[in-house]
Structure formats: structure tokens, C-alpha cells
């Protein structure tokens, strides 16, 4: 409670409230629950349902007022139980139920329905409404994930307010008026928001339901555990709901530091992949006839043997471990300890698609600090696509706060419309663009007006990490006192880096390990939940590396492109199948809960590391996840703490060659739905990936005489790809953009990754007609 708290009286009890707090919230904290439907603490109050009316006296006599819209004031008296209040609340509940179908037994919300609950607690007990109820066509799809039953809707404005105020996607709206009012989308324009699932969660009745959960369970059959989403590194707090050993849904939990209760649709719905086909359930060994299932003992013996042999014959540099950013802190710690024990220096949780670990050595900011900064500089991928809930937080900071965004981008982003300055740069000239921008007096004034937080990530996968990191270093030098919020993407990348999986030097990162493998210098390549064939930007190098590596050991939950041909495949537990902790992008350590059992004999990654160490003659000193957690807590990585580890950083030099013949910059970045395993193996999401295509400025297409949808050929020094084209006027004429990692549904579609070479700082291309 802050110092200047306000004293008010609720039902005769004196309570202290925060200044500016609404009566409904203050009363609730004091144990007086006032019924409500439209009120939501994370959205503006509209006072629409009138259910929260209570008698409030501010010195002019008691007046019926919506407690969701009246801020506390000193000396105020609130009566939530007076006759007038009761008459109003009961009357309104009866009216709310008047047109509400009595279909609770078949309604998904039954059992956790605020309308149902409050009808019991605050309702009149019976309804006198005998007329015909309103009828609408039964549930209609308003998007591929959400269904709307307008008969159940009580028009509380929560979903529509969420879409407009929070997500910034006002694609659902009230239409018609009065008694005919309904929530609707525009004809043929679905509610295709990255955040649509939140509306089903906040709907106070069963009007909006999420298709992946429809008819799956009754609330009273569900078991719940608090956990953390690891679909990206924002680390939203969730509640995992399961029944009969299956995860049935994730619900967002309001965490004040992180997600404010929201989730993105990818994070909310990709739990489906836990129970998907394609899970690896037993250890597999490659034989002449393909993979054969085997026992853990046999598989571990072989792996131990492979490691022993290569360490003995070719030394520790012949072993590489790639991955680890998808597991828990405990997994990463155990693997880091194993590598250290064996002297393995080649380990890297990133796949050439992030930034050097030195990023974490810069002065760091939290999400809260970002959201209250005067200026946020974006040198990052499109947050709306890659770190969606961070986008919500930053959008809120701009729309409802006074934060201003200076964005450096090649393509524009979901935040461009909220940016104070959105500055375009080509692939190689981000450094000079920053210098030019900062020369502006208004920009300087803005930067010195208050705290500056730089959100830094890898904006373009077709440009090397060095080029982007050099720009960040330049930026940090240019702005005194700026702090960095790392926008690295993978769920536990910060945890993995800080737990010791960061490469010891540039010579042991993923790119150099893959290069070594391609050159035949790697005997054992361990893929720790990683899929370089699909995820490493330079596809040709990844393919050559998997070919050139002596043996490939893959530890994975799902079969993936890189695993198909692995020599040993070890089945791994995925999130919700193991306990532990995870670290989000600000370094905040949060719990991971086990809610269901692993399929088959799959194990947590840390167990595999501990056993391998044991078999190789090293004792890691732990035998349980709790043991590792203790170790982590002792280095400041206990659940609840914000954990940071020092990293050395030296100035990065880059040399971008002048353009020559290839005069178009290739920009490649991720979008929310791609061919990645979590999306691809979640049936509800798999269809949402757009598929491969390339976006080009319409004037360029006109010049070339190419229509939207036709194939064009992109040619770089390293390769070429043919892809269908779509015009996009956010791009300037010198850039083309393609989404990374899209499934190639149609045969004959090329992959933009064949244009990217990890040895070239930028990817430059030519556009050609396909004759």
C-alpha cells in the first residue's frame, strides 16, 4: 500500500485504498465482492452492464453508482448491501438472464461462468421472463480459432474492448443497436488477431469459445498448475489445465511484471503439440533399415561410446552441442556442466538466428522499465510477430502511457503506427541510419527527456548477427545511460545462455560448429532440442553440416527435419511434462510445472546429461531437479528472482561489401505462425502459417510486369529460389521481404534460405522474371 492511501468505508468497515483505485477493486481487496460483468482491471471501465451498482455516498447522500467507474475518494461511504443496491443488482441479473439461453449443461463455460455464479450469489432466484428469447444463428466462426454464440452474449464489451484497446485489432465490433446489438466481424473479415484467444478467456459467459477446448472437459474435472509459457522468451504466466493426463488448455494469469493476464494465440494453443503425433516416445538407433526402437540403456551406451571415442581420438573440439534454449534452466545447467566436465567448448543454444551472448552483458532493462521509459528504441524484429505479449506491453505504454518509440526497421512492424519515429534502413546500413537519425535535434531532445530502453534482437536473418550487433553497440555508445531489453526469441534462450551454454567464443558458436561439421571436423554433433536444418538461416551450410558430421545425436520431443536422419534419437520430455524453471528475456526466473506424464519413456534433458556424465565418469553432484534448482538458486537464479550473469563484450567490426550486380536487400524475419514444430504439430494452428511467398514493392512488380501471386525468381551469389510474389507497399523499392521457416506446401516453391550465406554479412539479390 502506498503512503497516500485513501480511507473509505465499505459496509461499515474502514479500509484503505490506493489513490485512483476504483471502488469495485478496493472493496474486493477488503473482502467485499461486488458482482460485475463488464469490469476488467486491465481495460478501461465502460460501466456498461450496471451489475456493479452500489450506493455510494460522497457527502451528498447515497447514490447508485457503478463501482467500476467511481474512483475512491477520502471519506466516501459505500454500501453494497442496502435495499436499493439489492433491488438494482437482483433486477439487473434478472434482466441479464432474460434473453440468455438456459443451456448451461451443454455450455463450455458451465461451472466457471461468472453469470451462472452471480445468478446464484446475487440473483433474484427466479425469472419472470416468459417471452420468446432473442434468436441468432447458433455458434458462428469468427476466426479459425474462436466461435461466437450471440445468444449467450451479454454485451459486456470485454472482447470488443480487448480487440480495440489491448490488441489494437478492432476486427470485432458491436453492430446494430439497442436490443438488436450483437458482436460481429465485418463480412468475410475474420477476427484474425494474434491475440484472439484472450477474448474467450475474458468472456464472462460462454459466448466466445476457443475451438481447441470446445467440449473437451467440464471445469470441475480439470486439474490446474501455475506455470510459464515458453513459446517465446516473454515468459507469460499461465495456468495449465489438464484432465486424465492430457493438457486441455492454457489460461493466462495476471502477472503484474510480465503479461497482465494476456497470452498470444501461438502460446495459448500450441499445447496441442504435446499430444501430437510425431512425438518421440522411445530411444531410436539408425540402422540400415531406418530407425529402430531400443532401450535407454542401449541408446545411452552407444551415445557414451560415441562421445568417448571422439573425445579420445579427436579431442573436445570434435564434439558440438547445439540447442538448449527450449528446455528448462535445469536442463541447460546440467548440459552446461556436462560440457564443462568433458571440456567441450562448442555449445550454443542459439542457431545463428540470435545475437552474441555479449548482448546480455550490456546494462539490462526489465519489461516494466521498458513500459515506463520515456523512449524505447526498437532495433529488433517485429515484436508483434515474435514476442507478441511484449508488443502488447509496449503498445500499452505508448497508447496509455507517455512512452515514445523510435523504431529502426527495414519493413515496418506492428508497432510502426505507434512509433514516434519509424526509420527505414537497408540491410547493411543500419549503422549509418542510426547516426543520421540521432543527428536530429528533436530526436536528441527526446532521448535526453528520460530513461531510454533499447529493445534489441535480430531484425533480419539474412543479415549477419555481427552487422546487427555492431549497430547495437554503436547505439549504446550514442545514448548515455541506455539499457537493453534483449529481444532474443526462443523460450529459454536467456536461461540457457546464462546457465553456461553460451559459446565460449565466436569460434565455438553454432555457425562455426556447423562449418567445422561441414568440413568433416566434427565427430559427434548433439542436437539438444534443435533443428538446424529448419532453423539455421544458411540452409546449405546446415545441410552440409549434418552430412559431414560423423554422428548426429538428437535429443528431441518431436521428430523434425534434422532428426529424421540422426544416428541416435533420444526421446525428450517437453513443457508441462517436467518441472523446473525458465528465464524470460528480462532474466526473470519463473516456474515450469509438470502436469502430465511423458509419452513412452521420454525423459527430461537434464536427466540425460546427468546420466551421460555418470557413464563418462563424471559426477555432476546432482540427482534430482530439486538439486539442480538449489544450485541455480545459489547463483541467483531462484524462482522469482531477476537473474543476470556478466558477459564480456568486445567491439564487433563489420565490413559490408558494396553492392555489385545484386542491388536488392533481402530481409527475412519470422512471423507468428511458421513451419516450426510447435505450430506445425498443433492441428488448430498448423493451417495458420501463410506458406512461402515473397513481398515486393508494387512499383517494382509493375515495372517487371509481374502480377500478384505469380512466381518470381530471386538470385543471390549463393543460390536462387522461385516463389510466388505478393505486393507490399510498406517495402521500399530496394528491399524484398520473406517470412522465415514457412512450410513449403506447394511443390516447386523455393526456400529463401538458399539465398543466405552465413559467411556474407548481408544478403543481396536480384529479382528475375520466371519465363
Amino acid at each position, binding site marked *: 500500500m502506498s503512503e497516500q492511501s485513501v480511507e473509505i468505508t465499505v459496509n461499515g468497515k474502514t479500509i484503505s485504498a490506493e489513490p485512483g483505485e476504483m471502488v469495485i477493486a478496493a472493496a474486493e481487496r477488503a473482502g467485499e465482492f461486488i458482482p460485475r460483468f463488464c469490469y476488467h482491471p486491465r481495460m478501461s471501465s*465502460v*460501466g*456498461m*452492464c*450496471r*451489475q456493479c*451498482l452500489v450506493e455510494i455516498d460522497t457527502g451528498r447522500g447515497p*447514490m*447508485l453508482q*457503478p463501482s467500476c*467507474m*467511481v474512483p475512491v475518494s477520502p471519506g466516501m461511504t459505500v454500501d453494497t448491501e442496502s435495499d*436499493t443496491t439489492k*433491488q*438494482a443488482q*437482483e*433486477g*439487473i441479473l*434478472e*434482466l*441479464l*438472464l*432474460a*434473453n440468455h439461453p*438456459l*443451456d*448451461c*449443461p451443454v*455450455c463450455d463455460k*458451465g*461451472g466457471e461462468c461468472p453469470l*451462472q*455464479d452471480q*445468478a*446464484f450469489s446475487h*440473483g*433474484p*432466484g*427466479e*425469472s*419472470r*421472463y*416468459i*417471452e420468446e428469447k432473442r434468436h441468432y444463428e447458433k455458434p458462428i466462426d469468427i476466426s479459425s480459432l474462436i466461435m461466437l454464440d450471440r445468444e449467450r452474449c*451479454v*454485451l459486456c464489451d470485454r472482447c470488443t474492448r480487448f480487440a480495440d484497446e489491448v490488441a489494437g485489432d478492432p476486427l470485432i465490433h*458491436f453492430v*446494430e*443497436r*439497442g*436490443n*438488436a*446489438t450483437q458482436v460481429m466481424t465485418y463480412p468475410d473479415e475474420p477476427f484474425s488477431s494474434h491475440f484472439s484467444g484472450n477474448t474467450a478467456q475474458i468472456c464472462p459467459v460462454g459466448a466466445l469459445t476457443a475451438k481447441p477446448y470446445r467440449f473437451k472437459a467440464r*471445469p*470441475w474435472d480439470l486439474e490446474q498448475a501455475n506455470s510459464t509459457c515458453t513459446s517465446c522468451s516473454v515468459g507469460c504466466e499461465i495456468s495449465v489445465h489438464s484432465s486424465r493426463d492430457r493438457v486441455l488448455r492454457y489460461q493466462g494469469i495476471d502477472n503484474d511484471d510480465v503479461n497482465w493476464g494476456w497470452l498470444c494465440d501461438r502460446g495459448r494453443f500450441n499445447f496441442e503439440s504435446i499430444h501430437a503425433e510425431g512425438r518421440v516416445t522411445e530411444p531410436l538407433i539408425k540402422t540400415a533399415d531406418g530407425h529402430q526402437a531400443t532401450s535407454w540403456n542401449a541408446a545411452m551406451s552407444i551415445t557414451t561410446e560415441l562421445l568417448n571415442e571422439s573425445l579420445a581420438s579427436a579431442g573436445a573440439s570434435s564434439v558440438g552441442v547445439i540447442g538448449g534454449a527450449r528446455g528448462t534452466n535445469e536442463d541447460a545447467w546440467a548440459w552446461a556442466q556436462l560440457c564443462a566436465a568433458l571440456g567441450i567448448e562448442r555449445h550454443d543454444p542459439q542457431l545463428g538466428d540470435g545475437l552474441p551472448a555479449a548482448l546480455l552483458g550490456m546494462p539490462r532493462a526489465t519489461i516494466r522499465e521498458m513500459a515506463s521509459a520515456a523512449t524505447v528504441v526498437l532495433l529488433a524484429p517485429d515484436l508483434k510477430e515474435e514476442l507478441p505479449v511484449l508488443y502488447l506491453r509496449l503498445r500499452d505504454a505508448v497508447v496509455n502511457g507517455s512512452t515514445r518509440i523510435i523504431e529502426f526497421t527495414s519493413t515496418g512492424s506492428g508497432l510502426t503506427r505507434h512509433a514516434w519515429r519509424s526509420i527505414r534502413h537497408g540491410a547493411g546500413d543500419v549503422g549509418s541510419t542510426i547516426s543520421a537519425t540521432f543527428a536530429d535535434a528533436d530526436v536528441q531532445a527526446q532521448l535526453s527527456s528520460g530513461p531510454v530502453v533499447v529493445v534489441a534482437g535480430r531484425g533480419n536473418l539474412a543479415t549477419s548477427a555481427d552487422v546487427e550487433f555492431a549497430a547495437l553497440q554503436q547505439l549504446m555508445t550514442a545514448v548515455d545511460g541506455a539499457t537493453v531489453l534483449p529481444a532474443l526469441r526462443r523460450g529459454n534462450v536467456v536461461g540457457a545462455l546464462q546457465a553456461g551454454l553460451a559459446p565460449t567464443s565466436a569460434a565455438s558458436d553454432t555457425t562455426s560448429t556447423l562449418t567445422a561439421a561441414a568440413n568433416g571436423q566434427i565427430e559427434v554433433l548433439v542436437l539438444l532440442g534443435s533443428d538446424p536444418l529448419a532453423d539455421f538461416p544458411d540452409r546449405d551450410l546446415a545441410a552440409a553440416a549434418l552430412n559431414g558430421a560423423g554422428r548426429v545425436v538428437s535429443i528431441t520431443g518431436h521428430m523434425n527435419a534434422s532428426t529424421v536422419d540422426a544416428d541416435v534419437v533420444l526421446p525428450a520430455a517437453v513443457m508441462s511434462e517436467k518441472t523446473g524453471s525458465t528465464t524470460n528475456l528480462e532474466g526473470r526466473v519463473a516456474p515450469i510445472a509438470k502436469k502430465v506424464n511423458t509419452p513412452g519413456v521420454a525423459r527430461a534433458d537434464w536427466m540425460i546429461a546427468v546420466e551421460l556424465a555418470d557413464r563418462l565418469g563424471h559426477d555432476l553432484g546432482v540427482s534430482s531437479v530439486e538439486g539442480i534448482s538449489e544450485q541455480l538458486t545459489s547463483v541467483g537464479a531462484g524462482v522469482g528472482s531477476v537473474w543476470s550473469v556478466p558477459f564480456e563484450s568486445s567491439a564487433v567490426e563489420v565490413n559490408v561489401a558494396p553492392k555489385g550486380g545484386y542491388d536488392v536487400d533481402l530481409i527475412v524475419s519470422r512471423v507468428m505462425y511458421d513451419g516450426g514444430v510447435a505450430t506445425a504439430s498443433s492441428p488448430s494452428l498448423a493451417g495458420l502459417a501463410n506458406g512461402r511467398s515473397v513481398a515486393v514493392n508494387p512499383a517494382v512488380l509493375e515495372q517487371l510486369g509481374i502480377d500478384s501471386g505469380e512466381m518470381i525468381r530471386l538470385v543471390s551469389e549463393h543460390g536462387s529460389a522461385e516463389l510466388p510474389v505478393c505486393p507490399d507497399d510498406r517495402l521500399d523499392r530496394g528491399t524484398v521481404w520473406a517470412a522465415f521457416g514457412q512450410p513449403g506446401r506447394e511443390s516447386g516453391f523455393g526456400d529463401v534460405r538458399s539465398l543466405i550465406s552465413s559467411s556474407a554479412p548481408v544478403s543481396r539479390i536480384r529479382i528475375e522474371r520466371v519465363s
Partner: protein
Amino acid sequence: MTSFPWAPGFIDGDRPKIVTSRFQYEDSHTLERYLATGGYEGLRSVLARSPHDMHEEVRSSTLLGRGGAGFPAGVKWGLTPDGVFPRYLVVNGDESEPGTYKDRLLMERDPHQLIEGCLIACYAAGLSRCFLYIRGEMALAQERVAQALNDAYAAGFIGKNILGSSFSIDIVLHWGAGAYVVGEETALIESLEGNRGMPRLKPPYFPAAIGLYGQPTIVNNVETLSNLPFIATNGAAEYTAIGTESSPGTRMVAVSGHVRRPGVYEIINGTTTFRDLLYGEEFCQGIRDDNELKAFVPGGGSAPWFLPDQLDLPFEGRLVGAAGSMLGSGAIMVMDSTTDIPAAALTLTKFYAHESCGKCVPCREGGTWLMRILDRVVEGTGTTDDLDLLLEVGGSICPGDMPHAASADLQLEATPFPYKMTTICFVGPSAYVPVHSALTLFRSEFEARVAPSRTRSRIPVTAVGAGS
């Protein structure tokens, strides 16, 4: 005492005229006529005074708002928070309250008077842009005001540096599109922002503090503003010399329904009584066909009904409030002895149910429910229980005592205005007001139409299904 064919409904008379003085001319809407009859002289004189000075003049005139609430304009202008700019003027020309007819006449017949009023208000209150919101269904008013604005711009009365002064302002004509509730000032602002016309909650959204685009905004009615040229030209003293101290000046009143001579009259405020209006020779000349007066609605469809008992009340807000109703928008609807009271009440309940914006549950659901119950009572398929149900459903919209008139016959004491309400604006309660008035004052007419009680259907809420 004539009516002019070009000003349908308006009935002239030998009374002081403030806002209708030009209605006698067929071309009263033209700039030529306006200038020939002292038009824009008020503006000219105002520009020579300080804005503060003019504001004080309006304050001392006690010009009451004519939109319904009767709040003094000069006081309202002073409610804007200090130092917050820009501030806007929004002109409420959405006239839609049942029975109300005056703003349309003022816009059609004397648009320049309104424009001059807007200019004076903006000057005096430091409002830097004016939006003139005209109800969509008023095509002629739209045309007349558009023409007047075009002419006034051309003549230099609107725009940059008006009449060579530092006063610069645009007046933007805005078209409504048919929604009664948009007449409510916060809904008007929502509508002007391009949104659904759903009222905002006051507090915090008092327009003078947080209005259009979140800026301080003065919303004034067309008739209110049309009084300003007179006050500017003749001074507050001459204005307050007419009418009473609490209700000075004149006001326009439309009397419709079962009177001999329905029409729009500019009457002296505060002293003219309902009897004068309904029976006076220079006004409505009595009830049609010499029938008895049964009841009348004194202040627009939202106002509780009066009986002949209240005829001697003058047009004075406080007195009418104490008697159980309100003056509202200056609209009287008269019902003679032939009137089917339940059916008459139904027309109003239907209106408000239809015009609910849908925001508040009690209005959205309750209004329609009231309408359906009343409908079956009128159709003759209701029961005595339905009459109680009407009052109970109404109680969910207006908990507590409802205002109503006194009746000697029924031995009823008056309950004064206003009522408690569970809704944001008055549309919800207004669906109940006619039901309550009619049932309270004419219960026997309802009882005569309904069958005795059946066992009332009550659906236990437990049918909603068991929880966990």
C-alpha cells in the same frame, strides 16, 4: 396571431419575440433578410468587448439551456478546466424527443441567428472550433444551414479574422443519421467522433471537462444559442426583463395532440401557465371537439404525466419538478377524454425501447420487456399480474420512488422529480416513465383490459444448471 405557411407549425402572436422575430418574413433564412433585420450586429458589438465581458453578460442573463436539463449557459461555459486547450463548441441540433419541435424551425427559418449565436459563444468562452450537429432526418434544415454557412463564410462572418478582428473560427456542419439517444450530449460527442452514439458516464465524462477528443467541450442546444444575438445586442437586462428571475426570457413550446390549435409558440418563460397555453385564445384555444382534458405530458416524452389538476402551474422548472414532472425540452402532448391511455403509453415505451443504445442492461433488456408486457396488456391478452410485473421490471430500471403528479380524485400526493436510476442516461427510465404515470393515474383503464391472474410463470434460476 397568424401562422405563416412557410413556417409550418409556428403560430405568431402579440408577445415578446426573441428567437422567432424573423419568422414573419418568407425569406427569413437568407443572409439579405438577416442583415436587413439587424443580423450580425450582436457579433459586431461583441467583438468590441472582451470575451470575459461577454461571458459575464451571458452569465447575468441566466439564459437557461433549452435542450432539456435547463442548466444556465453562462455557468456551463465557466466549467471548463483552466488552461486546457483547445476547447470546442458542439451544437445540439439532434432534436428527437417525442413532442419536441422548435430547433428544426429555428434552423430552417433563421439559420443565421443560430450561426451568430455560435460565433458569440465561441468568442466568449474561448472555443476554437464549432461543430453543428443536425439530426439526419432534417433534410431542409441541413440545406438551409449549409447555405447560410456558405453565405456567412463568403461575407466574412465566419473563418479567419472575422470582421477584421483576431477572432477566427470554423463552423463545421455535421450530419446525424438517425438515433434519438445521440441527443444526449456525451452520445453526441461519441457520434461526432465517428462512433456508435452510446452515452459516456458522467462523471468522469462531463463534456465541459472531458468532451470531444477528450478536450473541454461545450454542448449547447440550438434554441439556447439562438438567444445569444438578442442578449449581445440588447444586453442581459433587457433579456431578464422578460419572464421571471429564475426563468427569464422566452421559450419555444410545441403543443401537440388533442388541442384545437396545435402549434409552436414562443411564450414568456416562468409565468405562462399550462392553462394559458392549452386554453388561451392566443394559444391552443382549448381541447378539440370541446372534449375533456384527460392528461398531458408537460416536457417531452420523458416527462411524467400531468392531470388537469396541474394546469395552473407556470412554466417554471422548480415548481414543475416539485409537482412530479419536468419541463424538459418544451413539448406538451395533450390527451383528451377519448384517449386510450394504455395504448398512448405504449407508443412512448416503444419509442424508448427502440431508441435504447444497448449499453445498459436495464435499458436494453428492461425497455423491450416493458414494451412486450404492455403490448399484451393493450392487445387484451395480459393478466393483472402483468400490471404488477410492469412496476417490478420498472423498479429494476428506477429503484425506489417514482415521481408522479398529485390527483384530487385519486387522493394522491405528488412525488417530486427526479428518480433513482440504474442506467447511464435517461432513455432507460424514459421507457418506464409513461408506464408508471399511466398505471398510477389510470390504473382502472388497465384493469379493465386484463384477465384475472393466472398462476404466474416463474422460471427458477436453478434451471440455469448446476455449478460444480
